């Protein structure tokens, strides 16, 4: 049956397949040779070939374009050789014909054997207590140590992601962990209670402690050879984990060897502070046996809290129920029923008082009642269950998972109003304020969220939600529609991609920047370019274009490449307003003559230098002002000459008469002189 399905998949793939993809000019990905056995829940696997070593057995996973892959983990994991993980050979964006666009591709070493557990309901050959340490625990611990030393987490440790690396079925290794956001592919059973409460896309990278918990769950699966909670759905598993603890839920009545009990109790401890760490595992591996950790369950209330037709006996369970029924949860809290229950049934007067204060502030505050009530409930849920994710109106996210959630929402073009609201109302700060112990990572994240709020407050290009998106996801490719399907992750890839986009552009009036590109630049530039970004939104087109030229020129100068002829042609075609901002016709002609030469050279730096000559600009402005003054002076003189005709006639008459008089007198003098001379001689 499965074979028939595989054959169907292969036939379908062969139909839709196009030419093979080529990654970094070295790896050929055969789009007509899918490998359904190696598919992950959100990535398809295909045969990959290494041109340098054709005998090497590889496969490639094609990531979904609408989910942000873990590029930082890819960078750290490339080439790492560890017995517990399948080697990541190469990664990168590649033109993928079946999708008709560039897709992130990850090339892995191909396991010789099969997947240990095909799905969560299947059964497989169990690994007994004598083999489990050597075949599973040791390589997995070594892998987690390797990852920890590189500052990353796996977050995909599960029995369905475990492969036999050899034909003999001896070596087991963990498969892909980078093609989707951290923990996204994980079934709830493999996640801690807190992580399980979060939306899958917003689980966050977490810490190695989360990996150790998943390892604990996987060990139970391996020892039993099946899923012990296969009969339960996710909601039931979470509920049971909260009520009975993870160990109790997963082990139940199964009989385990003592050594394994100790290991599993340590790894499945629901309190992250008490959960075993790498040192404890090392001690266990070296043969030192400790008394098993006894899980401390939350105090059960004397009477249940009635909510939504059910009764809840502990705070965590109640908080989870309230988070799921947001609107229904607000009235009982505002009415003080929760405070009373905490005081009388749970006998936690301190927490009851804090909640009473929060409710009172919400009721007496001057802000919008609905907003105040939402924030109040969010705070109350955090107080009821501090380790739980940030829960706000149905959206549950670990603080470090907020970025991937936002990326997914934007990529899927879904409604992002709730996420915007969370940032603007500083909801994450409520979560950070409730932390009892200081963690540098938390204060860093809190600072980042404050910055995001400031970015959202600015509506110009380079800010807003797009800026938050790129600030939260360091490895998210630029989502600009101008770049088409190009995969631009780093700033140095932006200008070449725009150059390629310039060659195929149809709209000649389109400026080579949009909100995504501007925000991408702002988030990825190492220096603070916010002032330059503000210039992009200048209402005067010539000033906005100069700001853009300035940015692109700096990037070309710093990151290359030296020649971008298509992009310079694009920018040059838009530079007419800047040329026209010069008053002098001679200067304009000079610029019009010079621009095409620079465009051919492909240098944005030279275009910028040509158009942003401050000295020439000042000279132009001063000379223009002088020319205007000259023109006006001439105009006024002409007007004066034309309007003073009466005065001019009067003047002409006066001068004429005076001239005649002078001539008369002169003639008299001359005659007298002649007469005198004639008489004297």
């Amino acid at each position, binding site marked *: 049956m499965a074979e028939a399905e595989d054959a169907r998949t292969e036939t379908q793939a062969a139909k839709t397949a196009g030419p093979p993809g080529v990654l970094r000019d070295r790896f050929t990905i055969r789009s007509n040779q899918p490998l359904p056995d190696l598919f992950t829940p959100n990535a398809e696997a295909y045969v990959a070939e290494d041109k340098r070593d054709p005998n090497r057995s590889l496969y490639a996973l094609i990531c979904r374009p609408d989910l942000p892959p873990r590029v930082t983990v890819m960078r750290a994991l490339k080439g790492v050789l560890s017995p517990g993980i399948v080697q990541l050979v190469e990664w990168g964006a590649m033109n993928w014909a079946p999708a008709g666009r560039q897709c992130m591709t990850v090339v892995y070493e191909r396991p010789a054997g099969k997947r240990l557990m095909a799905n969560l309901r299947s059964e497989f050959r169990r690994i007994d207590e004598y083999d489990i340490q050597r075949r599973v625990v040791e390589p997995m611990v070594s892998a987690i140590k390797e990852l920890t030393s590189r500052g990353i987490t796996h977050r995909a440790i599960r029995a369905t992601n475990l492969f036999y690396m050899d034909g003999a079925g001896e070596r087991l290794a963990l498969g892909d962990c980078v093609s989707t956001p951290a923990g996204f592919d994980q079934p709830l059973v493999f996640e801690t209670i807190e992580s399980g409460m979060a939306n899958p896309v917003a689980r966050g990278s977490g810490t190695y402690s989360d990996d150790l918990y998943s390892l604990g769950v996987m060990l139970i699966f391996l020892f039993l050879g099946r899923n012990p909670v296969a009969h339960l759905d996710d909601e039931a598993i979470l509920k049971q984990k909260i009520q009975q603890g993870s160990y109790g839920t997963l082990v139940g009545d199964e009989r385990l060897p003592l050594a394994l009990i100790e290991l599993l109790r340590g790894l499945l401890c629901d309190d992250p502070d008490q959960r075993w760490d790498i040192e404890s595992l090392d001690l266990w591996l070296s043969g030192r046996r400790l008394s098993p950790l006894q899980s401390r369950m939350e105090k059960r209330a004397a009477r249940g809290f009635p909510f939504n037709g059910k009764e809840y006996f502990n705070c965590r369970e109640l908080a989870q129920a309230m988070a799921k029924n947001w609107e229904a949860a607000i009235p009982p809290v505002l009415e003080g029923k929760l405070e009373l229950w905490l005081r009388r049934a749970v006998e936690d007067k301190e927490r009851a008082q804090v909640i009473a204060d929060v409710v009172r502030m919400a009721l007496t505050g001057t802000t919008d009642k609905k907003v105040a009530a939402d924030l109040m409930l969010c705070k109350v849920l955090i107080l009821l269950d501090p380790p739980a994710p940030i829960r706000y109106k149905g959206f549950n996210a670990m603080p470090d998972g907020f970025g991937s959630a936002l990326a997914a929402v934007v990529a899927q073009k879904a409604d992002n109003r709730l996420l915007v609201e969370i940032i603007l109302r500083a909801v994450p700060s409520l979560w950070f304020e409730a932390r009892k112990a200081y963690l540098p990572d938390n204060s860093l994240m809190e600072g980042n969220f404050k910055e995001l709020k400031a970015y959202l407050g600015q509506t110009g290009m380079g800010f807003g939600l797009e800026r938050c998106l790129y600030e939260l996801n360091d490895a998210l490719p630029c989502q600009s529609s101008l770049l088409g399907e190009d995969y631009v992750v780093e700033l140095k890839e932006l200008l070449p991609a725009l150059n390629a986009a310039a060659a195929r552009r149809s709209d000649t009036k389109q400026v080579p920047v949009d909100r995504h590109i501007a925000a991408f630049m702002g988030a990825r530039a190492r220096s603070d370019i916010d002032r330059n970004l503000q210039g992009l939104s200048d209402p005067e087109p010539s000033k906005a274009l100069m700001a853009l030229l300035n940015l692109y020129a700096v990037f070309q100068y710093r990151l290359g490449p030296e020649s971008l002829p298509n992009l310079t042609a694009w920018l040059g075609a838009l530079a007419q307003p800047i040329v026209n901002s010069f008053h002098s*016709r001679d200067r304009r002609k000079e610029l019009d003559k010079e621009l095409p030469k620079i465009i051919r050279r492909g240098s944005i730096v030279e275009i910028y230098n040509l158009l942003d000559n401050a000295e020439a600009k000042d000279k132009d402005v001063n000379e223009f002002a002088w020319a205007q003054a000259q023109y006006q002076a001439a105009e006024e003189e002409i007007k004066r000459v034309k309007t003073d005709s009466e005065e*001019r006639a009067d003047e002409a008459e006066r001068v004429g008469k005076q001239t005649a*008089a002078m001539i008369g007198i002169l003639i008299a003098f001359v005659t007298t002189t002649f007469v005198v001379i004639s*008489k004297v001689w």
Partner: protein
Amino acid sequence: MAAKKKSAVAQAQAAAKAKKGGGVGMNKAAVLMILAALVPFSLPTVILLFFTGLPTLGAWASEKGRHKYAWLCVGGLNFAGVIPYLFTLWFGVHTVDEALNMLSDAGVLLWAYGASGFGWLLYMITPPMVASWLSFTTDRRVASLKSAQKKLVEEWGEEVSRKGG
């Protein structure tokens, strides 16, 4: 204080006016007395000048308006026509009979009055000529200014004609 000052100034002006007026009157009287004393000795000259200079007196008396220059133009030419006969009188027989004799000569009157007529002609044609000249130079100036403006527009575009902000 101001009233005092004003009255002082007014007094000074009045005094100066009185002094000036008195001075002019005195001079006029002195000149007239000298001329009156000379009349018995130069009566022939006076007679000749009076009768030949009638066009000048006429020009002086007939011209109206602010710019009274006709008597100078007509007078100049009138005098130029008379001066040869005046010298003949002075260097010949300087008597009243000789003066009257000259006046009875049509040639003397023709010269004197003909020259005056030429003076009138000159006085009439000079202002239009000057006006034409002035108009010509003004037109040239306007053309030169318009040409300069055109050059500015060619160099800086139409916006140069807008008043600078």
